């Protein structure tokens, strides 16, 4: 497919890897964070890290929306799913993400009507087909999926649909990045910027990273050549003493983002004063709720939810993984008590989660190294 196949060319990949090798300074260690879970998935899937010199280390960031959802929100979701006359809809494996007393899949087994959808528009269709029941959509995701939820709610209102509701967990990527940059735990040399978030918000909002924190950031696409080129661009900035926002993913990302999507989001959503992120704690103005104008569609106003904060299981180190403080395989339960089939932490559930991505792809390369 155009704009895809040419970015998976192995020969070109090896050529860019050679340029990276020529750019790095021997004796210097480079620590770069890929912010987006989609990048983490691509890095392990294509073995991008195998092509990098040993002194270039990739650190996984907080950009997997499932991974950052705290257990208390899952408990709230399960409570809504158990309400009589409710059809609860959510994305795929969200069914398997553990709350403190089980998963949505467990709730389904206990009789709750829980259904998997690919798009919020699918949930709206279910609402149209079931006018006598309340249909709740569990909305998660960064600025990439928030426009889909916003558009769906606009359509619901335009069509006069009264039985569709949204439990909004949409989060934004910039506040946790700022929190990470303020963290004393982590020393980073640069960032691989989240390409698809930038299709919506544009490249400009990331300028605080070089301006306030003196770190380079390169917005990158998701194919292996995109990632290799972005890494090379960051290393070149460091070598030349530059520090700026660069856009490797210019074939898709405009500097100003998608103005229509931003407009729809600003109409439907309002900022939450604060929101809890797994592993990062409460971050102010980092998440979205439905605006007053759309309050009639807010599942948390329609039904009461427990809203109880729940601590992560003691064995789980998702927080440290999400902050890039430890690698997935350094977690005490990685690959033993915690696997994709029986996940303890969220990072092992989502394919974009660093633990699942590493478990599915990266561990084989490491096993070869150990042998």
């Amino acid at each position, binding site marked *: 497919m155009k*704009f895809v196949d040419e970015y998976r060319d192995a020969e070109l990949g090896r050529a860019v890897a050679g340029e990276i090798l020529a750019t790095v300074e021997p004796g210097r260690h480079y620590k770069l964070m890929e912010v987006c879970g989609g990048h983490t998935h691509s890095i392990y899937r294509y073995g991008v890290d195998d092509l990098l010199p040993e002194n270039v280390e990739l650190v996984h960031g907080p950009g997997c929306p499932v991974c950052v959802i705290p257990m208390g929100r899952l408990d709230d979701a399960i409570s809504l799913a158990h309400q009589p006359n409710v059809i609860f809809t959510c994305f795929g494996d969200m069914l398997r993400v553990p709350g403190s007393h089980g998963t949505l899949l467990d709730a389904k087994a206990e009789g709750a009507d829980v259904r998997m959808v*690919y*798009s919020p528009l699918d949930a709206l269709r279910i609402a149209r087909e079931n006018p006598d029941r309340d249909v709740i959509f569990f909305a998660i995701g960064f600025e990439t999926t928030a*426009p*889909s939820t916003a558009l769906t709610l606009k359509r619901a209102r335009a069509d006069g649909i009264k039985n569709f509701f949204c439990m909004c967990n949409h989060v934004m990527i910039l506040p946790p990045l700022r929190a990470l940059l303020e963290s004393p735990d982590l020393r980073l040399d640069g960032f691989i910027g989240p390409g698809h978030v930038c*299709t919506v918000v544009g490249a400009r909002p990331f300028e605080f990273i070089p301006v306030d924190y003196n770190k380079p950031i390169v917005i990158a696409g998701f194919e292996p050549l995109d990632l290799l080129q972005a890494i090379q661009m960051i290393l070149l900035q460091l070598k030349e003493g530059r520090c700026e926002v660069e856009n490797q993913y210019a074939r*898709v*990302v405009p*500097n100003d983002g998608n103005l229509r999507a931003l407009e*729809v989001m600003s109409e439907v959503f309002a900022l939450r004063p604060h929101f809890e992120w797994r592993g990062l704690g409460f971050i102010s103005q980092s998440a979205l709720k439905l605006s007053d104008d759309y309050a009639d569609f807010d599942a948390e106003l329609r039904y009461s939810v427990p809203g109880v904060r729940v601590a992560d299981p003691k064995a789980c180190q998702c927080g440290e993984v999400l902050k890039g403080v430890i690698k997935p395989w350094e977690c005490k339960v990685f690959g033993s008590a915690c696997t994709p089939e029986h996940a303890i932490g969220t990072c092992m559930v989502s394919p974009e989660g660093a633990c699942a991505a590493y478990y599915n792809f990266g561990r084989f390369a490491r096993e070869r190294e150990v042998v």
Partner: protein
Amino acid sequence: MELDAAPAHCITCSDEGLPMRVLVLADESGLAICADESGADQSVAIDLLESVAVGDDILVHAGVAIAHMGRCRA
């Protein structure tokens, strides 16, 4: 760098952009028919893009197109 059998998008949260090509423009429901990388047809809302034409390559998140591919050069 061959594709394997792993899912091309995140089935947990749908939070991954899928490149698609527009085959048929939106009907009364506002949904266009698009082909994904494997050639399979999918319904996609294109309300958030300006001037979409048949044959355009677009980026789709959770059933909604959020960007054109190959149209902008920063």
